[in-house]
């Protein structure tokens, strides 16, 4: 037979557990446990909304279509800007290690709000014009994106290793920081390599 003190310990333990259980709804409102990892996604899909059939060999006055997407896993709604930039092989990409964006000015931009756990996708239609070739160099005068024409005036030398005149259309993801009341580079970028093949 157990002693009275042992029974008292059992009753006290049951009491404590019971009180905690009954108080748990209130504790759930007061105590906030840390959530999972906070991050955002940025992607580019081909014309069929799949990771295939990306434009690669491009020419002048031909329309190309890709889809740009953003996914939010930041734990709350987020305000993003996707900057679309255009570069040749000698110009800088963002530095993922340092977390710094490319110094190139953005041509096109998408501003968007995405709820936590949701995603956003939009088409990016683009075409090139004023394209010319001379002495192992190609020149691109204008780039049209979603109906807006931008003067880019870029040139690319012939890439002996990869046999082509390579340019890159890339997108950077920026996020609005409420604390600093400004956009900051979110260290996410994706790009499409484009080989300028003809006028």
């Amino acid at each position, binding site marked *: 037979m157990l002693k*009275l003190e042992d*029974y*008292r310990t059992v*009753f006290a333990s*049951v*009491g404590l557990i*019971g*009180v905690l259980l*009954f*108080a*748990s*709804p*209130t504790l759930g*409102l007061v105590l906030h446990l840390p959530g999972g990892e906070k991050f955002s996604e940025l992607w580019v899909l081909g014309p069929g909304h799949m990771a295939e059939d990306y434009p690669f060999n491009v020419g002048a006055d031909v329309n190309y279509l890709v889809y740009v997407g953003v996914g939010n896993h930041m734990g*709350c*709604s987020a*305000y993003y800007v996707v900057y679309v930039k255009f570069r040749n092989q000698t110009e800088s990409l963002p530095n993922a290690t340092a977390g710094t964006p490319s110094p190139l000015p953005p041509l*096109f*931009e*998408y*501003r*968007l*709000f*995405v*709820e936590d756990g949701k995603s956003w996708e939009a088409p990016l239609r683009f075409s090139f014009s004023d394209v010319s070739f001379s002495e192992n160099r190609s020149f691109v005068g204008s780039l049209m994106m979603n109906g*807006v*024409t*931008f003067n880019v005036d870029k040139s690319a030398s012939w890439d002996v290793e990869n046999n082509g005149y390579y340019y890159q259309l890339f997108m950077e993801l920026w996020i*609005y920081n*409420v604390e600093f*009341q400004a956009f900051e580079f979110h260290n996410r970028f994706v790009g499409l390599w484009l080989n300028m093949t003809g006028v």
Partner: protein
Amino acid sequence: MLFFASFVCLFLLLSLTTVGMATSENEAAAKVSEAENAVNSTYEAVLEAEKAGANVTGLLSVLNETVGVLSEAEIAYKNGDLDGAIGKADQCVTVANGILNDALTLKSSASENAQMIFWSTLVYSSVEAGAFAIGLVLVWGWFSRRYIKKLLKMKPEVASDVEA
């Protein structure tokens, strides 16, 4: 003399045109900046409403349309379409201010709602936990009395191998 007068007139005309263009560009830049600030403030208000527990899906949907117009204003400004930029920026500010008011209202009602839920939960939890504790104390009282009574009813037994 006529040549000099013509030159001065041409110079003044060019100066006025330049000043007019600069003013228009400054005005467009200021309008676009105002629109950006309006959207930023609105987003902050929507975020606060969301943190207060409000459903902001509808507001974000309208805000997404508004920032689409803001992007168009930015691009129009960069491409030198100053009138287009001003028009779109104005449109953006008007809609953003409307959403800001909605967000503030939503936040206030969500805060009140959250506070009411908190207090009612606190009261229910406290009453339940208190009732459980009191019940347990009563059961303990009954149990310990029964235990002692049972203990007192027990008869002492003497083992046969104990020395007298």
